């Protein structure tokens, strides 16, 4: 019983944290309109870092 209450409190805290996380309705709608956008930006950032390192190794 105590464990269930503790888990409930932890979940409520998580919900409050998520509600404050700045993910607005517009933000979510933008993702539903362009589902691949965030993934593309993420993968581009990762490959830019790799490119930076490879350029340094090759050309100094």
């Amino acid at each position: 019983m105590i464990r269930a209450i503790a888990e409930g409190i932890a979940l409520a805290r998580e919900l409050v944290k998520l509600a404050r996380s700045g993910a607005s309705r517009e933000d979510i709608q933008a993702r539903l309109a362009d589902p691949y956008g965030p993934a593309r930006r993420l993968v581009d950032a990762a490959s830019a870092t790799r490119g930076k390192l490879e350029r340094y190794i090759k050309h100094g």
Partner: protein
Amino acid sequence: MKHWLAFLCLVFVLACAFTDRVVRRAEDGLDLGQKAVDTYVEAQIAYCRAKLDVQTEEQRALCTADASALLSKTEPAVEAAGAAVAAYWSARSVHDEASARRALRDLAVAVEKLPPEYFGDVLAALQRFR
């Protein structure tokens, strides 16, 4: 009966809103983690540039070996996480909730391979979905 159905609909809508926010938080964590990795790589490049005994390609590769090792670890996981994020929003945009749940689980599995010192926020956001 009507009230019961309304309650079930409300629970369903709230559950979708909850997972949307979890994925948004995970995206932010992935962005932050990737920026931290980029900062580390830049710092290592700057350190190797400042060293006088690092002149050849082999020496530069050796000097930045730690950065290369870190990227070998993070790059595939970030790509897998990106694919899962795309799959999640695609599924949600066509109201395919079963595929969205699967994508969320895939995302949680993909981020498990990321180093917690850079991607701690993502791991915390997806802890419940592993």
